[in-house]
């Protein structure tokens, strides 16, 4: 299953990151994981939240520019060579990866990595063919009570 990721445009300046985090905090939305890409002038904040469409609406209402991108959360055995095995499949199938970052929480004995493929549907199909597990729902990453 593809997961919806929110991408936000931020200028590279003090306090820029605080703007979306405060909006999400006030709306009671928990961030499951995130990554921040930066350049000299601007950055892109990528967020995984439980309800992407709702969070997008709230952020846009507050004036942010938000994109929804489909990403794939891949389960990776948390041991030496775990990621290498997954990347070997990706390389064998010539899948293009735009960027990768990881979930802070583990799923059982596995780490979870967020992959942005140029063709997520093809990636899902081929990963499944090689028996690579992907995360199908985000509820497991929510700490009880949030």
């Amino acid at each position, binding site marked *: 299953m593809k997961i919806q990721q929110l*991408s936000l*445009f*931020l*200028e590279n300046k003090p306090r*820029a990151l605080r703007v979306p985090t405060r909006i999400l905090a006030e709306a009671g939305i928990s961030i499951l994981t995130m990554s921040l*890409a930066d*350049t000299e*002038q*601007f950055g*892109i904040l*990528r967020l995984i939240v439980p309800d992407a469409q709702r969070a997008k609406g709230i952020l846009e209402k507050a*004036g*942010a*520019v*938000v*994109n929804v*991108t489909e990403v794939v959360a891949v389960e990776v055995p948390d041991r030496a060579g775990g990621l290498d095995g997954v990347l070997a499949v990706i390389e064998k199938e010539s899948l293009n990866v*735009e*960027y990768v970052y990881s979930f802070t929480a583990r799923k059982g004995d596995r780490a979870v990595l967020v992959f*942005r493929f140029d063709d997520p549907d093809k990636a899902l199909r081929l990963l499944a063919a090689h028996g690579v597990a992907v995360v199908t729902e985000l509820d497991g990453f929510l700490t009880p009570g949030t």
Partner: protein
Amino acid sequence: MVMKDFGVTAICCTPSYFIHLIDRGEELGIDFRELPLRAGIFGAEPWTEGMRQYIEKQAGIKAYDIYGLSEIIGPGVASETETQDGLVIFEDHFYPEIVDPDTGKPVPDGQEGELVLTTLSKWAMPVIRYRTHDITAFITTPSGCGRTLRRVHRVTHRSDDMFIIRGVNVFPSQIEVALLSVEGTLPHYQIVLTREKGLDQIEVRVEVTPEIFKDTISALEGLQARISHSIERTLGLRAKVRLVEPNTIQRSEGKARRVLDQRNL
């Protein structure tokens, strides 16, 4: 080097280019004060008294302002004299008037208005009451140099939204054309003019909209580069492009202020 070899005594160019030459000379170990250069005639862009003082001190020369416009003859319509107290209009060839830009009616001497020129001696392409859009005023006191032709103050601004950067005339609408050709939509933008080390710099700030926002750094940097190339193709000038967050460009009465001139002209 050419200036040194030929023993150049006078130069005519834009003031910002001459400041660039001074800086370049410094890098090469050439002190302009030791060259035979005595005078510089500078024009084709607005410049300030501060720039004059800088040039005169750094290069050990006298710096004079010259006014003209390519629609007439280029530089040479008016120029400062050795007393540097206003630009003397070459009245044998050009008939000057200063009018209220809104009504077109002449304003009293000494009052600011738009300079209107009529050529008296041009043949193939004369102009009659040509509105320059340059704002200035007649100087009513006699010139220290003894000339009796009419003089005007240095031109620092215009009645329209055109601006001059590195000697090139630019209308904001040209930037709009360049922006439109990139994404097909016109985002909010602002043109910021600054002067760094005497050279005019142009920065175009573009608000990121959902239509142009892409999720990867490479796509956004590609967008920046495409806008920059498009502007360079349209104007022949290199502009810095900065992507900014939506609604960060100030708007007044719903309209953005398109040009922010921070050059202190």
